[in-house]
């Protein structure tokens, strides 16, 4: 039996504009995570604060948030892999607990994006590419993924309609998620008729910028069992990094960082893709979800669209994916996203996902990618 567990997971409501400060935003996820547990802030041995810099002005947010949550004088530090920061935070928390250094660690992800216009946010994200060689051309996150989409279409005959079907599914589940920014079902036509942002991706193929926070409490197995009768075990962890430059990418029809992270996570968990009952994947764009099906081994390369065509990734399909609405519906507050995905899987494995519970889910997977296919993180959880 694995010996590091998640005892609790919380998140704020994700919204376009939260109207509060980042410390208060972080508190919302912390509150949901700690509520009902017989522990206090004093039981938390360390906190890992996860976000991407430059969306708000605060430098070194770990110090600020640990003070507000009254986690001082325990160690607190900052971890960043842009959009996958909180999955990286979970990885670090696992190591801190597994090594025996700490018994209980809080992983707190946050992002307040509403202080910037969408174009300014796109400029910040554009500088998440190589600022000497590629950002000066106007490379953006959607543009990078659009190039993967185009390559997938050219090689495998994937269509814009296939991509739109991912959003149809995710908007269907987003409509039932009280934490999601967008709770409206979208039709195929709505999506196909939305304005082109960067071909072939349209507005509704894209996740929206949002404000939000997440909090995961990780503990040593014996400690976890004393706190909850439903510990969720961390059984597989995988992480890999691809080149920052698009010029360095060897594959344009899949994410190598995700493939490698998945390989590691399956190996560590001694599980196969077919063993996964429910998955959360990084659908920052519709195409990203199709790539994830293939990179995670749910479908062979080029055959990912079959899963969405046959509705196999709906809650009653063979491999339910993003049945909380995904980033596409929830919004994508960069540093909070991984923690939100983990929270969804924790709720699924506990049978507490009131919105769309996958029956009898025992094993869940989280796929969280930072940057344009740059930082790959795959986590496998088990009840």
């Amino acid at each position, binding site marked *: 039996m694995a010996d590091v567990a998640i005892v609790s997971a919380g998140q704020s409501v994700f919204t376009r504009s939260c109207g509060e400060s980042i410390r208060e935003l972080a508190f919302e996820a912390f509150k949901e995570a700690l509520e009902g547990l017989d522990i206090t802030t004093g039981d938390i041995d360390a906190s890992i604060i996860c976000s991407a810099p430059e969306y708000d002005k605060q430098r070194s947010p770990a110090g600020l948030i640990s003070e507000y949550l009254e986690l001082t004088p325990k160690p607190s530090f900052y971890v960043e892999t842009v959009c996958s920061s909180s999955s990286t935070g979970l990885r670090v928390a696992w190591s801190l607990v597994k090594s025996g250094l700490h018994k209980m660690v809080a992983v707190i992800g946050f992002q307040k994006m509403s202080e910037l216009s969408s174009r300014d946010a796109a400029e910040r994200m554009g500088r998440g590419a190589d600022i000497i060689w590629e950002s000066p051309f*106007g490379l953006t996150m959607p*543009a990078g993924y659009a190039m993967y989409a185009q390559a997938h279409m050219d090689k495998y005959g994937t269509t814009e309609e296939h991509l739109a079907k991912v959003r149809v599914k995710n908007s269907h589940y987003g409509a039932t998620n009280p934490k999601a920014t967008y709770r409206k079902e979208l039709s195929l036509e709505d999506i196909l008729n939305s304005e082109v942002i*960067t071909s072939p991706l349209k507005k509704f193929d894209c996740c929206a910028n949002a404000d939000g926070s997440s909090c995961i409490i990780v503990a040593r197995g014996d400690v976890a069992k004393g706190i909850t009768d439903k510990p969720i075990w961390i059984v597989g962890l995988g992480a890999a990094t691809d080149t920052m430059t698009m010029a360095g990418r060897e594959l344009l029809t899949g994410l190598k960082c995700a493939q490698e992270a998945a390989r590691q996570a399956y190996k560590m968990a001694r599980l196969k893709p077919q063993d996964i009952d429910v998955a959360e994947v990084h659908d920052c764009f519709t195409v990203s979800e199709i790539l994830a099906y293939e990179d995670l081994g749910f479908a062979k390369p080029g055959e990912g669209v079959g899963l969405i065509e046959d509705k196999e990734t709906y809650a009653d399909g063979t491999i339910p994916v993003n049945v909380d609405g995904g980033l596409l519906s929830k919004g994508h507050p960069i540093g909070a996203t991984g923690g939100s995905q983990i929270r969804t899987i924790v709720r699924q494995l506990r049978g507490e996902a009131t919105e769309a519970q996958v029956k009898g889910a025992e094993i869940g997977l989280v796929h969280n990618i930072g940057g344009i296919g740059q930082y790959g993180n795959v986590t496998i959880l088990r009840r």
Partner: protein
Amino acid sequence: MGFENFGTVSFTAEAKVADFITYLEQGKVMATRCPKCGVSYFPPKADCPSCLSGEVEWFEVKGKGKLATYTIVNYGPSGFEDDAPYILALGEFEGGIQILARLSKDIAPNDIKAGMSLVVSSVKRPDGRIAYEFKKG
């Protein structure tokens, strides 16, 4: 001179590989190679982490490449709004060199096809800034 005039918006100027810009001003798009390991680099690197040598040599990216993938960007981030729509593309060249650049405005969107033949060349913008772009090869 460094990278201060490179692309639409440059974010930093200094680099050991700033000779790239001198060559670019002469109309040449250059890559580097480690003479010891034989590995070539684009974007150019001044250092070889395999053999720790800093003695890399420059060579010109010549000949025809192929369009690997592209996107027509309608939504420009701050600083790039006036350029939109612009086309970002990845081109594959001989020796495993891959380059991200814009497609020349001379290429009509309807003519763009995966695998089409490309050349890379320097381009001077009316505002005096410099970059490289892909033209039909």
